[in-house]
């Protein structure tokens, strides 16, 4: 669906669907995982039909997320290579957070912060998937030393990743006109020119 023919296509339908599969499975994983993380969160298990179901479902959701994240990773990997311009953007990220983004260095499809987020999330995914397999007692029986190590890695990485996702979601809410990119795939030209000017030039051929 295109609301205005002048809007710019930022994501294809496949990319959006892929992202939502990852997003939904992540939320379910975080809710079910937190139930085992600390007693304070144990009631979250009720969302899954009780703690036994949460325990059974969590790793399968993990496999779904890991596979769909892998697809996202290869779709967007090339677009997230860091450049010197990204480095400069990151050095001045304080101004951005302060709400003063008008003279930030010009950015391509993704800014330095988004690229950092991409690589940090990819690393978290890898750590969670590997350590999650170590914890999966229903189907695997790794040596107990390895399982203990996996438990620490899994819990720590999960906490870091949930925090990163809070930042990811908040950034999308904070920068108005962004969330529609994940609903119908397009953004306005003004949005593109303000936030990703190099990308705007590239797709419109304008200055």
């Amino acid at each position, binding site marked *: 669906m295109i609301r205005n023919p*002048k809007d710019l296509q930022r994501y294809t339908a496949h990319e959006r669907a892929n992202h939502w599969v990852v997003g939904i499975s992540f939320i379910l994983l975080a809710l079910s995982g937190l*139930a*085992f*993380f*600390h*007693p*304070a969160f*144990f009631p979250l*298990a009720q969302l899954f039909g009780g*703690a*036994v179901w*949460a*325990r*059974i479902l969590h790793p399968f959701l993990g496999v779904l997320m890991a596979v769909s994240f892998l697809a996202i990773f290869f779709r967007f990997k090339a677009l997230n290579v860091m450049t010197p311009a990204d480095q400069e953007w990151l050095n001045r990220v304080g101004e951005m*957070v*302060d*709400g003063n*983004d*008008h003279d930030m260095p010009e950015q391509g499809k993704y800014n330095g912060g988004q690229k950092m987020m991409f690589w940090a999330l990819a690393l978290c995914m890898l750590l969670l998937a590997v350590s999650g397999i170590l914890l999966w*007692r*229903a189907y695997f029986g790794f040596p*107990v*030393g390895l*399982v*203990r*190590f996996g*438990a*620490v890695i899994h*819990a*720590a990485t999960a*906490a870091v990743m*949930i*925090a990163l996702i*809070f*930042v990811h979601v*908040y950034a999308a*809410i*904070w*920068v*108005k*006109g962004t969330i529609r990119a994940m609903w119908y795939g397009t953004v*306005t*030209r*003004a*949005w593109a*020119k*303000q*936030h990703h000017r190099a990308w705007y030039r590239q797709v419109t051929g*304008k200055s």
Partner: protein
Amino acid sequence: MALQSLDIARRSATTTPAPAARQTTEVAKLIDVSTCIGCKACQVACMEWNDLRDEVGSCAGVYDNPVDLTAKSWTVMRFAEVELSGPNGGRLEWLIRKDGCMHCADPGCLKACPAPGAIIQYANGIVDFHQENCIGCGYCVTGCPFNVPRISKEDSKAYKCSLCSDRVAVGQAPACAKVCPTGAIQFGSKEQMQDVADKRLADLKSRGFDKAGLYDPQGVGGTHVMYVLHHADRPELYSGLPNDPAISPLVSLWKGFAKPLATLALAGVALGSLFHYVTKGPNEVSKELEDELEKEES
């Protein structure tokens, strides 16, 4: 099973105090390895009292049968043939140890368990699994320094020796202690059992076992199942009894103060975002830019 007549000292995944109005005597089971003849009457008594019938396995070529603890075999005799070099030259010893839950004062299983009330430590020291609250995650296996709990393949619940908490609640000794024909398994208050052990140790030492000692490892705060060992300096001779067992530092890290801190940090990030929005306002596309592009388009 939860029994009202047993007072609770600790409950898994519970952050508020357990009922503590009453104090009960700490109990202990004493296993005297030096008088055990390996007859396995205790294994049979355990099956009978707890009404468990494990699969009939096959002979693995050694006396150990079943060869390992299972969800339905809560105690097994482990037989070790050990060659000891001593002042009197090489000597073969047959060391037989009744394996099972040690009922740690500081139980790694309970510490690791994420399900409220699935693992209970009674005031008398018995550590008991309550399968009705068990979620089958296997964290108790990860937490235990003695490799004791087993997850059933049939129902995905964790099982282990209950020290016959149901018998103890009504003033009876555990089934294994009751049945042992040589008196190698005794049951009573922990203090009493330490006294009994002292007498046995004096006897063993008088017979030349000068390294004899009581196995009541302090790394787990002491245990409510204790062994009299003739070679207490080398517990690993007894089919790998750990030398200085303690809850793994990784388990303490995993279950320690870091989690409440991580929870606060997450709340901080969420609230920080909210207040960022409220104080800085949204990041909107500037009006000038919008007007400029509108002109361009028309």
